[in-house]
């Protein structure tokens, strides 16, 4: 490509980009460009800009500072009803001005611009600005994660119709300096909504995403957040111990039955928001699984009702001598097993009851067992080989998450080595290695019905898997940064993901499409939890704040005050859905009145995202541990809270 024709090619590409075919034709004729060159027209964006710099009218570095100050003044002087919405403009304009300054080689001006206006941007953007400030010349824009995200995506801003009119009028007045207009045209997506401008609190509730707020259109799709109809399970005759009790007090069985009936009465009610049971195929229950379900129901009938006046008891499991090596923990659904993933690639499984962990008999011995026998499951286990703790080796990097399947026969783990492994809890070996993620896998979760599981990782994708496929069934792509946490909806039809781009998204497992995008986090969400009723989603973030989202609307219901001073890494709902509890690296567990949170949102249905100032009262109690950051929280079926943390020594 000749030097002479390069600028012309660039202009041609520009013309094509804006679809100006007439001009393109004429230019081609006049410049006498060959077809071959024309076909290969594919200059990278950065180069294009640098070529055009010479002809660029916006290359005066001083105009940027001036333009930004004038925009700032306009925002400050506008009426209060527009002010807060318009102020969301400042940050994207600021970022793109900085990037353009760098792009046109005004590095000195760029850093001065950053010094001058950087500190006055919102607190939650400061981290991003620090990352952006690393970019100090044109070459570094290429390959910088953040700069590329900003350049290749449009920043979303929501404005009311009136506010956008104001803005348009202002931009018309500023005709002399097209800087801002260009930035808005190229890099900012304005989402106009009818109705009055939002208040400061309303704006603050949803702002904070890496690329601005979610647009309303993203959240239009209907989400079936209701629970599935439970298959009828024959409640087994109560085991011997219960019978003895029954004999002692003849009144008891009746009461119990009444209670059980209650539980059954609730479930079959057809929920209008529930998806059809066959919307996604669910695995058929095996006999043993049915027994397990029956047990769960029986346990549930003995559940303690929790509320602000009857707080749960907490049993805390401390990992001693682990230092900082223990990373993650999980407790299985019936609270009998605890698994911990370590920095040194190993996984340890402890039994929390007196039942020891048994291995399976060797293959020769297994042949001798009568497969038709009723107690075949018991017989196939080794008699002598029993332990309170077993270690699983296989990964070659830190284990970031371990998860028990609902029937506690299998364990999933994901690791820095970009694999997910499925382990058997009967023969204590690795069954499958799922390779698919390219980079470290941060989180993996089972579907509440088993069979499916979902994972998210550093490659910015979330994936849906089935245990019998070695490749993912769905790949959910859309996040602009790492997928840090993932969670299955209780009805198994949806998956929620949280990402470093500070959005929480909900995906439909059936179609693979994104059905909700929720912004409002000011820091990376690290953990997600669905409420037991399926309507609410809680997410805990790196700055210690927890947000409760309403899945039906995709708006934040409540932002719990940031009482935690360190990242929240564990969230759990009590089994009756009245208490939300959060555990953080600051070694505290806090209990929140979840029924109050949801009550307030339903009574204030009109202004659904109106955040109450009385957030303080949501907090019920806070419990500190002895320098043991919380790794996991789990409610037993009877509503006892189990917490896991590792003691990090006296500081």
């Amino acid at each position, binding site marked *: 490509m000749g030097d002479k024709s390069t600028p012309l090619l660039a202009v041609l590409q520009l013309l094509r980009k804006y679809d100006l075919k007439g001009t393109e034709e004429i230019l081609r004729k006049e410049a006498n460009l060959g077809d071959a060159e024309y076909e290969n027209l594919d200059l990278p964006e950065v180069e294009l800009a640098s070529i055009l710099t010479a002809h660029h009218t916006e290359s005066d570095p001083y105009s940027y500072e001036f333009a930004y100050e004038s925009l700032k003044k306009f925002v400050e002087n506008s009426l209060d009803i527009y002010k807060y919405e318009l102020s969301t403009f400042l940050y994207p304009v600021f970022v793109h001005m900085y990037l353009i300054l760098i792009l046109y080689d005004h590095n000195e001006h760029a850093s001065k611009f950053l*010094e001058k206006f950087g500190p006055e941007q919102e607190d939650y953007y400061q981290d991003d600005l620090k990352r952006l400030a690393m970019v100090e010349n044109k070459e570094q824009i290429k390959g910088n994660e953040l700069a590329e995200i900003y350049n290749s995506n449009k920043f979303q801003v929501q404005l009311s119709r009136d506010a956008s009119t104001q803005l348009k009028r202002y931009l018309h007045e500023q005709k002399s300096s097209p800087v801002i207009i260009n930035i808005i045209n190229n890099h900012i997506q304005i989402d106009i909504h009818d109705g009055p401008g939002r208040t400061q609190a309303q704006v603050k509730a949803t702002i904070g995403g890496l690329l601005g707020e979610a647009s309303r259109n993203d959240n239009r799709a209907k989400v079936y957040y209701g629970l599935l109809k439970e298959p009828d399970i024959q409640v087994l005759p109560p085991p011997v111990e219960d019978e003895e009790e029954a004999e002692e007090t003849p009144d008891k069985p009746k009461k119990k039955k009444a209670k059980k009936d209650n539980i059954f009465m609730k479930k079959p009610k057809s929920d209008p928001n529930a998806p059809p049971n066959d919307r996604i195929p669910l695995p058929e229950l095996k006999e043993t699984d049915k027994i397990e379900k029956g047990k769960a129901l029986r346990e549930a009938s003995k559940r303690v009702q929790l509320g602000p006046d009857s*707080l749960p008891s907490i*049993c*805390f499991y401390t990992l001693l001598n682990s230092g900082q090596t223990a990373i993650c923990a999980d407790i299985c659904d019936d609270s009998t097993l605890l698994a911990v993933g370590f920095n040194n690639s190993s996984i340890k499984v402890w039994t929390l009851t007196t039942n020891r962990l048994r291995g399976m008999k060797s293959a020769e011995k297994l042949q001798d067992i009568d497969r038709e026998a009723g107690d075949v499951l018991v017989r196939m286990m080794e008699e002598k080989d029993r332990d309170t703790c077993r270690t699983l080796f296989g990964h070659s990097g830190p284990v970031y998450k371990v998860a028990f399947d609902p029937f506690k026969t299998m364990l999933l783990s994901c690791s820095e080595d970009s694999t997910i492994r499925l382990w058997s809890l009967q023969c204590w070996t690795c069954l499958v290695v799922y390779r698919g993620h390219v980079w470290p896998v941060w989180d993996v979760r089972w579907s509440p019905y088993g069979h499916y599981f979902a994972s998210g990782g550093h490659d910015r994708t979330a994936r849906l898997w089935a245990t019998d496929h070695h490749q993912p069934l769905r790949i959910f792509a859309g996040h602009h940064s790492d997928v840090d946490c993932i969670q299955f909806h209780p009805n198994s039809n949806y998956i929620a993901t949280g990402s470093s781009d500070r959005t929480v998204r909900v995906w439909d497992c059936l179609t693979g499409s994104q059905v909700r995008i929720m912004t409002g986090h000011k820091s990376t969400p690290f953990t997600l939890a669905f409420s037991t009723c399926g309507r609410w989603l809680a997410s805990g973030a790196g700055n210690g704040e927890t947000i409760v989202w309403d899945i039906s609307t995709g708006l934040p219901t409540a932002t719990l005050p940031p009482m935690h001073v360190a990242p929240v890494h564990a969230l759990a709902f009590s089994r009756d859905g009245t208490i939300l509890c959060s555990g953080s690296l600051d070694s505290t567990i806090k209990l929140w009145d979840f029924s109050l949170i949801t009550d307030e949102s339903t009574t204030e249905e009109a202004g659904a995202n109106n955040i109450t100032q009385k957030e303080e009262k949501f907090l019920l109690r806070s419990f500190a541990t002895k320098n043991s950051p919380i790794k996991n929280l789990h409610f037993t079926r009877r509503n006892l809270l189990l917490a896991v943390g590792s003691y990090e020594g006296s500081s």
Partner: protein
Amino acid sequence: MSDAELVYGSSFTVDSMKVIAESVGIGSLGDDAAKELADDVTYRLKVIVQDAMKFMHHSKRQKLSITDIDHALKVKNIEPQYGFIQPDSLPFRFASGGGRELHFVEEKEIDLSEILSAPPPKIPLDVSLRAHWLSVDGVQPTVPENPPPLSKESQKLESVDPITKLSKPATKDAVGKPVCGKAARLKASESVHVKQLATHELSVEQQLYYKEITEACVGSDEGRRAEALQSLACDPGLHEMLPRMCTFISEGVKVNVVQNNLALLIYLMRMVKAILDNQSLYLEKYLHELIPSVSTCIVSRQLCVRPEVDNHWALRDFAARLMAQICKTFNTSTNNLQTRVTRLFAKALQCPSQTNNESGPSMVASMKESEKTPLASLYGAVQGLAELGPEVIKVFILPRVRWLGERVEGALSGIGGADRLAAGNLKHQLLKVLAPVVRQLRQPPDLPEDYKREYGYLGPSLQQMVSKQRASPAGGSGSGGAVAVVACTPPLLPSPSAAPPAPAAQPAPAKTIESVASRNMVITASPTPQSPAPSTPPPQKFVIVASQQKPQQTQPASGAGHIVVHSSQPAIVRSQNVQSVVVTSGPAGAQPPQKVVVVGVHPSHQALPAASSAGVSQVTMSLAVSSSLKRLRYIIHSRRCFL
């Protein structure tokens, strides 16, 4: 480097690039090249650190580690840096000099052969699991596994400013207690009670605990006692019961000293030890109760029924160690604890001739042998001082060794079996304590004559001891504990010129007065002309003690009132007496009025709130100590009266 650059991170300088280039053998790196490199390296490092942060977060840590950097490099398809491990954190050392400041990681040279020959290091402990109750029905139990419900800082805040406790009755964050009962009622009645004081209610469980613990501590079951002491030393939630515990101890000591119950006194001291060992308690508030009790157990005239048989010396030794521990832990520049404790013991060692200037020569002359400070008390005082370190021994014991020697000589040649035993113990103790100090002080030619001349009766024995220690090199310098040197002004010479502007600044005058008082108190039988002299003969001996020092003041209570030993009344009366002494018998006629106030503060603690808080606590402390001593003697005297 501008401010904003600090905000958005720093960068490598051209100079450091050049230094690094030199270190890898590139001598002449151009300025431009260095600048390019510096920018590029800065950028790359920042990107790597940013990525490493992700790994840190997902490892649920708040501190970046080397493995995080390795993983970040791996994600970028760069070979990780092998061979760097980091045990815990990287301590950066700082060095400056020649106008340059430098941070560096200290790397020691390791001798490989040493490592090879050394036994293999121990295998680290395996990870284990332990369960405990973090909360039971919403209340956090105070077990050692849980953090203390109230941190030391908040305990301190509460003691300094009790209002803070009231202002937040629903202490959701600090204590996991349900909002009910009194706190809730307080909240409901909306700040009508403005002057409501902080509540000190104990829950039923706490009352039970208190009962169990105190019973176990003084009971006969050694196993239970060990458990109780263990609980006292470890449990984090004791702060609410602490005032009761301290009162229990101090009252217990008062009663058992009178009854000469050695065993119980030992048990009580072990309780003190356990409480001192508990890391979660803010004890400063209760020292005024503990210190008198402990000092009583050190210097009391008699601690057991049969002094000739029972080993009360062990109790004195143990209590002296406790006192040293208290001094070491709680001494601050404001409470001057160690100085005051030292004075207290030094007073007991006072040679009577030194008191002449206050009490007049006639009194000394009339003093009988039996009225001198008992040998057991002397032993205690010596032991108490010895525990405070060699410097204290040098300043306070060594100058009095001649007089002490006389006492020992007198007792050894005397007839009383108990006295002889006590003198023997005292002598042994003195030699043991003094020998290392003397060895440090004197030059090698140890001549018995010199020693005799300088140290009197104890000289020759001391000389033997010292030369024996010199012979054995391992003898060392005795207790090497580096206890701070205490103010060395002779405690019995009140400086008339000293008119302290603030009582806190100079506790010495107040001390002097006390010593005068306690000194005088020993002199019981001396008849004084001005004494108001109540008519009843038996208490008279005692009343003289009290009234001797208060010539002008009319006695507020009758003589009989003084004999009530356990009520707090006598202490108050006493201290008023002390106050009057200051006025009358001080050497300087125009005593500054502050002194009077200062001394008067303690007994009526609550009556004089005007004094500055520092002053109050200080004086309270000193007077508490002295009043306990006085009370002790008082008790002893009264016992004698009844016998």
